[in-house]
């Protein structure tokens, strides 16, 4: 046979491998692939694949495991394209894996600068893809474009100066001809922003400052010069409504975290959901969940775009303990309800603003509040199933003593203004809760032992997958919450599950400990094609 002739037949760049913007926008047409962080731009982390069902998930087996090469907290949500998985390792290196066997087919390696510091441990939550490029952020705050087919670096854009406390841990969001990336560093007194880059060249197209500067609307919500170190980072991937051409992105805590004395006011747009014009980055509306936050309750959540009787909504289960339903065209507050334990607010007023209880702010000695600084939920993804109409949230129940102290800002240094601590004789715990999406009403609950750090994925097979801090990857019945299956990965899970097809067979994958695990049903359960 003539291998030469066959290879020469590859005369043009293979266009089948191109992930056009239309493919991602119409992700439901190819349910076997996972083309953006939450699979679709709506932020649902739901798969239409239904080979694995509530009836057969009990027979799910590990298909393969891939051990990562870089140290850190492995939180990557893989991208899956035509049977190949792409993962970002904690330091921002990228590997392409055969989805059938877990064997690597290429790797992009990169050395971080020697003086790099990273808040909260090295971590990277994943990649974006567009056309023939993968996009990954790095701990030294670069955004890289990697050749999808060969793993070579194609462009390298400096997002911000890592020496001032900036880092990129978020999975970028790519649509149209651009790639959006947020910034981390809310504990280092950065001034937060959300950036858009030209996907082809890495040129920055726009930047939205999440802390408004002098002369901009919202600047008056910061006293003195506090805006300069105002925080409001953007370290979790947002959602996108192509019809409204609007991006929805959550923002983090104001800085310093626990001491609000020097930043009097509401501190816009910290702890908010911002809705931006996708073309210009101009603010369409904002909704602030926790005005003048002093508890580190970042609102860095994946916003879920849902509907109710044809009305376009966006819903958020927030770190502050409340579940919010907003009109995503106008930003109007529709309703909000408590979904987890909290002791700091008596409720929400007619406009959705929390009614703070007296004596709940941090003091020098410390004051106990539910939730603690990790919140009632955290960055890990919620999930929405259009089949059940339920929103699934991993809920944390853990109080903290919040104390505040004076802290002087020094570029690149820790700037939290306090030091929260755990509460004696209280064992932190957690649960998975299913809420009616339009009302937030609790439908079922599955108790966990420890507060979770893993996201959820609902499936068309009537299953919800999740992970525990003890390292169990598990499946619950989406309708009842009944546990159906679990598997011990041997490492704590700080990641979100995904699902994809390999040779027509449904797989589920999750990062756990220092490995990526993939699962599928045995051939006996699903006859081979």
């Amino acid at each position, binding site marked *: *046979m003539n*291998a*030469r002739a*066959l*290879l*020469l*037949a*590859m*005369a043009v*760049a*293979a266009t*089948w*491998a191109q992930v056009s913007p239309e493919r991602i926008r119409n992700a439901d047409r190819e349910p076997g692939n996972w083309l953006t962080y939450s699979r679709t731009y709506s932020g649902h982390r739901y798969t239409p694949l239904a080979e694995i069902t509530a009836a057969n998930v009990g027979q799910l087996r590990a298909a393969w495991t891939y051990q990562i090469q870089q140290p850190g907290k492995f939180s990557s949500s893989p991208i899956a394209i*035509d*049977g190949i998985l792409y993962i970002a390792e904690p*330091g921002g290196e990228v590997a392409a894996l*055969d*989805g*059938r*066997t877990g*064997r*690597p*087919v*290429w*790797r992009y390696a990169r*050395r971080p*600068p*020697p003086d*790099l*510091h*990273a*808040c*909260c441990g*090295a971590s990277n939550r994943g990649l974006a893809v567009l056309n*023939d490029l993968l996009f990954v952020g790095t*701990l*030294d705050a670069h955004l890289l474009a990697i*050749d999808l*087919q*060969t*793993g*070579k*670096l*194609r*462009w*390298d854009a*400096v997002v911000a*100066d890592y020496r001032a406390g900036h880092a990129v841990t978020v999975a970028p969001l790519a649509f149209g001809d651009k790639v959006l990336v947020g910034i*981390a560093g*809310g504990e280092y007194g950065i001034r937060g922003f959300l950036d858009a880059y030209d996907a082809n060249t890495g040129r920055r197209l726009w930047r939205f400052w999440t802390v408004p500067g002098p002369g901009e609307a919202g600047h008056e919500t910061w006293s003195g010069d506090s805006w300069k170190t105002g925080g409001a*980072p953007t370290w979790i991937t947002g959602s996108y409504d192509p019809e409204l051409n609007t991006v929805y992105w959550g923002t*983090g805590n104001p800085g310093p975290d626990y001491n609000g004395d020097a930043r009097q006011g509401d501190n816009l747009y910290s702890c908010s959901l911002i809705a931006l014009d996708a073309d210009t980055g101009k603010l369409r509306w904002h909704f602030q969940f926790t005005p003048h936050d002093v508890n*580190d309750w*970042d609102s*860095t959540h994946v916003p879920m775009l849902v509907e109710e009787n044809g009305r376009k909504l966006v819903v958020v289960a927030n770190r502050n303990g409340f579940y919010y339903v907003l009109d995503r065209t106008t930003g109007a507050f529709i309703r909000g309800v408590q979904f987890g334990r909290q002791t700091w607010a008596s409720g929400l007023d007619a406009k959705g603003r929390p009614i703070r209880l007296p004596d709940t702010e941090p003091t020098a000695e410390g004051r106990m509040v539910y939730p603690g*600084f*990790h919140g009632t939920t*955290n*960055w890990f993804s919620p999930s929405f199933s259009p089949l059940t109409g339920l929103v699934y949230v991993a809920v944390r129940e853990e109080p903290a003593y919040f104390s505040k102290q004076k802290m002087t800002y020094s570029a690149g240094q*820790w700037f939290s203004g306090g030091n929260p601590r755990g509460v004696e004789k209280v064992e932190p715990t957690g649960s998975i809760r299913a809420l009616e999406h339009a009302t937030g009403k609790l439908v079922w609950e599955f108790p966990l032992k420890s507060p979770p750090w893993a996201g959820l994925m609902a499936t068309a097979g009537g299953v919800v997958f999740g992970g525990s801090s003890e390292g169990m990857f598990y499946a619950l019945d989406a309708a009842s919450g009944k546990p159906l299956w679990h598997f011990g990965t041997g490492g704590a899970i700080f990641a979100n599950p995904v699902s994809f097809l390999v040779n027509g067979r449904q797989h589920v994958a999750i990062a756990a400990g220092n490995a990526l695990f993939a699962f599928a049903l045995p051939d006996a359960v699903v006859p081979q094609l």
Partner: protein
Amino acid sequence: MRRWALGLVAWVAVSAQTPRDLFVAHCAGCHGPAGEGSRGPALKVSALQRANDVDSLVALLRRGIPGTEMPAIAAEVVADQPLRALAAYVLGLRTNNRDAASGRLGRGAELFRGKGKCMSCHRVTGEGSVAGPDLSDIGSLREPQWLRRAVIEPEADVYDSFAGYRWTIPLPDNYLLVEVTTKRGDRVAGSRLNEDAFSIQIRDGEGRIRSFLKSEVAELRRQWGKSPMPSYRDVFSAGELDELVAYLASLRGLR
């Protein structure tokens, strides 16, 4: 942001930074990732106005340019030796180096794309095919003499064995030509991306990544020492070969 891992995690440098790393860290923010200029002036010019040799440029980098946004780089940030390397790197971005000035690189690039039809198998910065190796950074991986021989005698340096350097997981066993015949009778030829006792991954004739379990394979033929690349000995003149090799050697990738 969460704080369960309170405190700073210090990264231990595996090895010293390359000049390219330093450029990205200290210069690219204003002068652009490839020195094309953005907030700061372009460095891809025929000559730098203020410092056009290594010594002058090192001195300039140490003191910055007062009255402009160009900062000084202190010795605690970049030590003397790496700073000299950075200065040399920056000067290397100029467009008047000998090859560029003589037009050799441009002619080499034309030969690569045109007469050599190299991009029907190779890829450079996202253009071309993925049948053969991506050459975007081949100039930083191989010496010019090696590249010259690879062009006229493609099979001369194709490995007869992968023993000794590719037995671990991180580096895939790639570019061996293989032909897989499945038990169903399908035949797929391509270049190997990776292999172990139980499976093999290849890039097939359409550039698609295919994965086969050994249990499905009736026959696996490895074409040791073979290259699908024809010899260019009779295609290029000696002068053209020089130009092509100069072009290949100039492909340094971004890192």
